[in-house]
């Protein structure tokens, strides 16, 4: 069953279209991330689901009930705002009890329930504090408690971890995921952070310029990007454009203008000209031994080496001057990489299945 269903929703501001004809669903108990750069319309979609703005077209249903005409305060959604939006004039306990009081729960009972939810987010002793007396992480937990205490139909998270520093952000992400799974609450998250989306989501909808570019599991999005935009926004990719030329046994070849040849398995696409994405971690580097220019091999020069702890990034330059990025996990001992330095000539090579044909929409 779909807990959130968005059908052909659009939002127009004057003559500009912020969101155009967006449709998707969030399954019960799932986390769906709307991922995209700022201005792509992801926040607008979330605000329309919350009821904070009205769609220009289309319909929205929560738990099977159409809500397009229902005002925000009757939708029973729990929303976590970007900067938490706690009530500065109320202490933590009253912040949390607010939603219950609006539901006519007697004050004493509401405060008692608030205490229980505070325990859930491990802030038992903080009921009497005011928001400004809390750290960012604590404020976020209070905001989460406030959103959950009303037992919302769905949980909406608007860039929830943007204001936290890296370490705290990772902890809060794990904590949030555990809590979400324990409660089994259907969640929609808006983020521009690909790591966050990959870490927390069951499904990701990548948005660009008001439309959903790709919808799928994190694995699908990362390993099978459909477009040049998705391939470069989630992770990084090297791109090639070329023409489908030779069909070889069980595969085909794409030839680029600079002579690089890319070998593929399977049946060739219908188009004659294609764009190919190649993830940097799929490329091997070896000493340049010369030899035949085979498919999926390329002679390059090392331009820059950046050590990043867990991995090392090699910025290589192709003979034509175009860059090629290679990422290698720092998990093995001495190997060919050890002697590399800027100026070294190296051979880059990769397996045929690393070549991904994507839609060129840049």
């Amino acid at each position: 069953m779909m807990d959130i269903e968005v059908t052909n929703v659009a939002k127009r501001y004057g003559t500009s279209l912020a969101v155009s004809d967006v449709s998707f669903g969030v399954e019960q108990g799932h986390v769906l991330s709307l991922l995209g750069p700022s201005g792509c319309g992801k926040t607008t979609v979330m605000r329309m689901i919350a009821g904070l703005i009205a769609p220009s077209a289309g319909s929205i249903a929560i738990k099977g009930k159409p809500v397009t005409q229902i005002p925000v305060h009757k939708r029973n959604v729990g929303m976590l705002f970007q900067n938490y939006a706690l009530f500065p004039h109320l202490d933590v306990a009253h912040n949390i009890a607010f939603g219950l009081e609006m539901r006519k729960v007697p004050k004493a009972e509401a405060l008692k329930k608030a205490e229980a939810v505070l325990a859930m987010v491990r802030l038992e002793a903080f009921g009497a504090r005011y928001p400004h007396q809390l750290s960012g992480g604590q404020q976020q937990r209070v905001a989460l408690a406030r959103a959950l205490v009303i037992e919302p139909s769905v949980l909406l998270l608007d860039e929830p971890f943007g204001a936290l520093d890296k370490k705290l952000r990772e902890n809060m992400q794990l904590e949030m995921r555990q809590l979400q799974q324990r409660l089994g609450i259907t969640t929609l998250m808006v983020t521009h952070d690909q790591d966050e989306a990959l870490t927390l989501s069951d499904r990701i909808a990548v948005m660009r310029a008001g439309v959903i570019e790709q919808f799928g599991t994190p694995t699908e999005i990362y390993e099978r990007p459909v477009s040049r935009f998705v391939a470069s926004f989630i992770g990084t990719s090297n791109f090639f454009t070329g023409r489908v030329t030779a069909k070889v046994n069980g595969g085909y070849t794409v030839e680029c203008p600079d002579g690089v040849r890319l070998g593929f398995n399977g049946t060739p696409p219908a188009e004659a000209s294609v764009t190919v994405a190649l993830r940097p971690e799929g490329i091997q580097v070896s000493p340049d031994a010369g030899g035949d220019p085979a498919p999926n091999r390329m002679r390059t020069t090392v331009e820059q080496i950046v050590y990043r702890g867990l991995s090392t990034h090699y910025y290589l330059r192709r003979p034509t001057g175009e860059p090629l990025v290679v990422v290698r996990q720092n998990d093995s001992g001495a190997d060919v990489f050890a002697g590399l330095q800027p100026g070294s000539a190296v051979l880059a090579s990769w397996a045929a299945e690393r070549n991904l044909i994507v839609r060129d929409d840049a």
Partner: protein
Amino acid sequence: MAVAETLPAPQASAGRGGLFAFGNSRALGAVMLLAPAVLFFVVVFVIPVGLMIRYSFYQQTSTGDLTSAATLANYVRLGSVDLYRTVVMTTLRVSLWTTFIAMLLAYPLALVMVRGHPLVGRALTVIVLAPLLINVVVRTYAWRVILANGENGVLNWTLAHFGLGPVRLLYTEWAIIIGSVHVFLPMMVLPLSAALGKINPAVEEAAATLGASSFAVFRRVTLPLSVPGLAVGATLVFSLTASSFVTPALLGGNFAKMLGTLVEEQILVVFDWPFGAAIATLLTIIVMVVNLASVWLIERRFPSRAAEAG
């Protein structure tokens, strides 16, 4: 020098750091920065007010001399004569009504100024500030023309056209209230719109997602968060109305007297400076008590926000 003695000893503050660790040079800098304003206030405010208070404890003899012995006679007279008690009550009543009406008018205005289209907001700011650009006497005479009793008043003339009226407004407390609201409205609107502008719209949205109707959002979130601005505005309008002179003199005349007009009468007409000083002292006390009470109320209600300084 007294100021130097109140400074923390340098060795005590040196290791502490933070907000209260004034180094010697920082404290000196603070004193230097404050000095011009402090000096100015001592000369034009503290000394004259001191003199005024001292005068209020003297009495004038029948020959026009001042008695040298301090006495509470002026204050006893202020409290015991019906006429003066009436004037005190009129002053309080007019000031409170003016403050209350200004609040009612200012709130929707400030909301539109802050939340509405920026162009509308700017236009409204100009309109609200406009009364301050016109000389107070000119402006008040205009109100006399509008509010005049009989068929010559613009208001009554208009009412008569619709078969209504006439109303008697000039030389009543309501004339003073109308005139005062007009002048002092900006003093209410500006701090209020500043306070409303500081409210994060997401906080109101959060309340809505939690089940609060528009009215509940206003009552439980917007209104309480705007109280600091409302209090500043109320203090300003109350103080200015209570101590005003031109408006009550021209619109209230002899029939609706306020403390300001009474002081002028005692000083310039009756030449009883000690009694005039006593009235002025009482006026100062009333205004001060209202100021302190409102600061105390804000501090108590919003300790966190005051500490945060916005």
